[in-house]
């Protein structure tokens, strides 16, 4: 009897735990890219005051499908050609805590769209904005910044690094 009791408790616990699964949102719109709303600062000094209100949140960071799309697009748009699977080579690594041009979602989005003066190409007008946000979400998963149940759990490639869901979180230094 006691055993059954434990089994029931365990089952309920399991059920409750599974409530924490990511929510599948259909027809998810991209975050706002209205620049008046954007606060993609890359600095820690704000003359005459505190840091402006927080950056645009990337709702795709809550959505496993969007993140996995981001992973696919990261390869298809040749991001992988310079940054490889996060370790870097031609471009800097993306799986660590160092962000030259900021590690907030808006910073990464802007880096992809605007390009950066030391070799990062500008993809303005080349990648649909929704896809840029998907790539942005995936890029942040590389340094463990996404929930484990959203971050990709496997790669369809040869095993060259731990999957993103097992990546130790490394919050951006800047």
């Amino acid at each position: 009897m006691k055993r059954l009791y434990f089994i029931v408790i365990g089952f309920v616990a399991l059920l409750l735990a599974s409530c924490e699964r990511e929510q599948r949102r259909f027809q998810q719109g991209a975050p706002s890219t209205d620049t008046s709303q954007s606060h993609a600062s890359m600095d820690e000094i704000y003359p005459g005051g505190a840091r402006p209100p927080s950056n645009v949140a990337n709702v795709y960071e809550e959505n496993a499908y969007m993140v996995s799309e981001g992973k696919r697009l990261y390869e298809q748009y040749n991001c992988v050609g310079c940054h490889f699977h996060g370790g870097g080579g031609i471009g800097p690594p993306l799986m660590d805590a160092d962000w030259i041009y900021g590690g907030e979602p808006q910073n990464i989005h802007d880096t992809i769209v605007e390009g950066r003066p030391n070799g990062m190409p500008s993809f303005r007008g080349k990648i649909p904005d929704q896809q840029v946000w998907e790539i942005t979400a995936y890029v942040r998963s590389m340094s463990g910044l996404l929930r484990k149940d959203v971050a990709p759990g496997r790669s369809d490639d040869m095993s060259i690094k731990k999957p993103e869901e097992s990546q130790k979180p490394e919050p951006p230094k800047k």
Partner: protein
Amino acid sequence: MQFLPSRISPAYWDFSARIPRKSSCLLFLCLYLCACNNSRSHVSEGQFPEKGGFQNNVYQGRIEPDDGQWVRPAKDYASTRFSSLDQINTGNAKDLKLAFTFSTGTERGLEAAPLVVNNTMYIVTPWPNVLYALDLTRPGAPLKWSFQPKPSASAKGVACCDWVNRGAAYAFGNIYYNTLDGYTLAINANTGQLVWKTRLADFTRGESITMAPLVVKDKVLVGNSGGEFGVRGWLTAVDAHSGKIAWRAYLTGPDKDVLIGPRFKPFYSQYKGKDLGVSSWPPDAWKIGGASMWGWISYDPELNLIYHGVANPGPWNSEVRPGDNLWSAGIFARDPDTGEAVWYYQTSPHDLYDYDGINENLLLDLPINGQMRKVLVRPERNGYMYVIDRQTGEVLSAKPFGFVNSSKGVDLKTGLLQYVEEKHPRLGGVVRDICPAAPGAKDWQPSAFSPRTGLIYVPHQNICMDVEETDANYIAGTPYVGENVRMLIGHGGFGGEMLAWDPVQQKAVWSIKDHFPIWSGALVTAGDVVFFGTLDGWFKAANARTGEVLWQFKTGSGIIGQPVTYKGPDGKQYVAILSGVGGWAGVVVSGGLDTRDESAALGFANASKELPKYTTKGGMLYVFAL
């Protein structure tokens, strides 16, 4: 060669340690079977080169006279990197002392050879490609002038393997060199003023320039980089006085672009036919097929021929480009006046492994089978030491000088490389333990030849790789590779070596092994001393006959530069080397890469992942004397 458990990463083993032993055995069996299911892990025989004893083959051919200066990276047109200076010899090399230093103010890899002309030393840095002139007549060799070309910072984004520059060339009172963003410059050697500047490469399409130009007669010869960016390779001759383009030979495409005409007489039949640079590719693939020219050029004034290599075809994923992919991964002989091709030989037909054919060609006259032959000796990326008749393009011999299992040899009848089928990379599967890896048994780092010992001194690496082909999408200005690569230290457990090779006996004589690839060039002198540097920063002098290390000095950073020697204004012999880790082998340090990703830097970061524990970045010139 069996499957070596020691080559599995330690993290794999830690995982099993937390599980009871019996189940861990089972788990292991499962893991092993799963891994095999997805991969093409094959036991295949590879081979190290044959070893022979030292036979003193005093060179019978001619060697260019030496005035104690160093006017081009390869020293002479034959590319021997041999100096007749002999003040520093095997007896006194142990007494070498630091004479002076100079900071380059850069953090990226220094692959260049310093030049010494008219008691001035010239140094080219990696991007931002500053040219420094140092006055050797004054104590401490102070700065005379510097020239800042201010290349575009964006060009760094199309440099496959660090922002390197392999050096300058002196002629007609000018220093000629190239910038990463695609210009060739002529700078007045006395004043540091710009004489002319010509744009040759378009970095917005993935082209860059990293090679050292060669000046032949009144032409400055320059080739492009960008084989990982879907460029179309070329070699261009620029008029040394005006900066105007004299001719350009594309290295893919129709014959008229490649400058193939009536004078083209290749030795082997597979290179005969019309427009093979088009028909050996899928439609239009030759337009983005790589075949760049970022390496070395040699010149034979008697035959009036230049010899240059051609780099890998793109993308690395070879399934998307069926065919021989001419004229990639081979050697051209050309007339320097017109650019006309005279012969061609393909070292890696339909290249499967990024075996760029851009290594140095040493032009020597050697007794082959009892007969003196004018040959070209090329320690080739695919692992073979080619001896080629430089008048006809006939391969006389090709013996492995490093560990090779990706091919079985070279068929001397057809000239064809004999690939090993089970090492053939595929889409949707992993092929393991391919030796040599993509950088080859030897990359750009140039060897030296001593006429006193008859030996070639070959700095090279010993690394293998696991490969999986992936989709390759061409987007102009971005990489066009289509491959996941992980490199590993090779068989025998060493990363590289300085190898002394007897080109007549076609055997290895001695070697000095190192934990890391040897990514520096070699220098040999009439004092029978060989100089080279290691990735962890040791600058070494070795006995050219025995391989005994006579002296070594720990520089501030890893060495990937080319040592040179010269006679100073005081009559003393000096030896100079640039220290500053980087390049493909060292970008793991200079680029601050994260080695948790084993594919970083096209997979090379994994083979040199220990390097950050041994050295840090930073550029410095070191000059030594007795």
